[in-house]
């Protein structure tokens, strides 16, 4: 499956080269799907889970380097296993869970470094730590597309129920929403997102792409639906603008993408502050009477 090179279309500069077009596709897919999962993760109050799963994915990459297999699937195996352990610990509650998380995360990255060193060279980890979107192959991009499709379908089917669970887990459970299974699903989807994004922005910056567009969007959006759509738009535009900046100024693409997302967050904060200052009622106590239509 080595199609995709050359591309059936001609794009203007800076996307005139084949490697830029591959990067564009991968960047847009990850820019759209990472915030899609991030919106639920942020609302659940576990914003940094993507960071932790990224650490664990390093163990999978190290194993792949050692045994000379595909890093995607070994990273996926490690990240999904860690996601399941973390969700199990979270459901049990308690502070020992927090320490256990640290054990899983740092044990993961340490194992990755050790495995990679056994394979002869540590430098092969670099593209996965910091991202290497400009060297992505057609196969890499197909993998990202496939993982992106899985995420979009899963959110389309379960998004309403996931929203109910992050809103109030007990109430969702009482009303028959399978909260436990959906929590596991969200953890697994987070792991899939991490693996899809690791070649693009690197495991150290994945959480940023899941969280920053959501953090920006929820400042200005009124509804959860609006937050989702806004976060996707910000994620996609960050990927496109970051790639352009990377080409123009010869920057590291992953870092440039995340910096654009951070810039969006700053702009959204300013926008929200201006709107608060400008609105007559402000964010202060709303006057109750205006809402009331009277009982029927």
């Amino acid at each position, binding site marked *: 499956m080595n199609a995709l090179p050359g591309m059936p279309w001609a794009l203007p500069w800076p996307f005139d080269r084949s490697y830029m077009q591959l990067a564009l596709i991968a960047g847009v897919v990850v820019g759209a799907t990472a915030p899609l999962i991030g919106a639920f993760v942020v609302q659940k109050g576990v914003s940094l889970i993507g960071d932790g799963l990224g650490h664990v994915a390093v163990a999978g990459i190290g194993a792949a380097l050692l045994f000379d297999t595909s890093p995607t699937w070994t990273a996926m195996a490690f990240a999904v296993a860690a996601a399941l352990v973390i969700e199990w610990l979270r459901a049990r509650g308690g502070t020992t869970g927090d320490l256990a998380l640290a054990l899983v995360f740092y044990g993961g990255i340490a194992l990755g470094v050790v495995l990679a060193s056994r394979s002869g060279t540590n430098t092969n980890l670099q593209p996965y730590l910091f991202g290497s979107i400009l060297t992505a192959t057609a196969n890499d991009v197909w993998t990202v597309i496939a993982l992106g499709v899985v995420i979009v379908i899963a959110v389309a089917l379960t998004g309403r129920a996931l929203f109910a669970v992050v809103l109030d887990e007990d109430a969702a459970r009482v*009303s028959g929403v399978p909260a436990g299974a959906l929590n596991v699903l969200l953890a697994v989807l987070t792991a899939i997102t991490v693996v899809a994004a690791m070649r693009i922005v690197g495991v150290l910056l994945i959480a940023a792409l899941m969280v920053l567009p959501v953090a920006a969007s929820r400042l200005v959006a009124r509804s959860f639906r609006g937050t989702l759509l806004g976060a996707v738009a910000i994620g996609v535009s960050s990927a496109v603008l970051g790639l352009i900046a990377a080409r123009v100024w010869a920057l590291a693409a992953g870092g440039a993408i995340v910096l654009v997302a951070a810039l969006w967050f700053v702009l959204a904060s300013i926008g929200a502050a201006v709107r608060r200052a400008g609105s007559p009622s402000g964010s202060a106590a709303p006057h109750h009477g205006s809402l009331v239509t009277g*009982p029927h």
Partner: protein
Amino acid sequence: MLNSAADRPANETAQQPVLRAESVSFAYGGERVLSDVSMAVQPGEFAALVGPNGSGKSTLLRVCLGLIEPDAGRVQLFGQSPRSLRDRWRVGYVPQRLRIAPDLPATVGEVVGTGRLAKQGWWRRARAVDRDAVEHALESVALTRARGRRIGELSGGEQQRVLIAKALAAEPELLVLDEPIAGVDVESQALFRDSLVHLVREHGAAVLLVSHELRAVADDLDHLVVLKRQVVFDGTPDDLAATGVSLGVHQDDLPLWLEELEA
């Protein structure tokens, strides 16, 4: 122990209760929170569960809803164990207030819509009948015009009514509310009372209200259970009045009595 449930007319007790707890015991660690608790809520009944702090009210509620398993005894919702109940929409649950994060980016309509998932099926899109039910739920708590507002912009009392509308959206046959009126402004208390009475009288649903502030609904209650790790009273407000404790007329009667129980 006062127990006048047995004295009630046969036609009331002959029906299958919507909720029944039988000899339920529960302990957290070594501390026993519920001891041999039995109670029932009949269809169409407006019932209240009261007790001092730490009396096990919330624990009993969580057991009744199937969120935790009792150490002994059993619970039935509509004649089935809570976990095997298929039609989950028949039970609506309003948790204690302030469970909504103040910066939640969601509209009132979206939050109430999640309450409908129990009936529409959590994997399904909303159809016209679902949107109508959400609309009706918003109407019954007088928040129709707030549908598109961000929930964090609402007052505490309004947010509480949103949570009630969320539970009403599935058109439940039993609505369970955990301490819903604490700290809510007087106007919201009145609207809250109206929406519960509407549910009981017009829709024939049963309500179980867990609270220690019963003034707002004192005149509407059919059934009262007082809990202090075990059931210390089970009967009508009139039965309670016969013992010299009133619910609402002298507003401090019940709280004072609960305090005495604590001593």
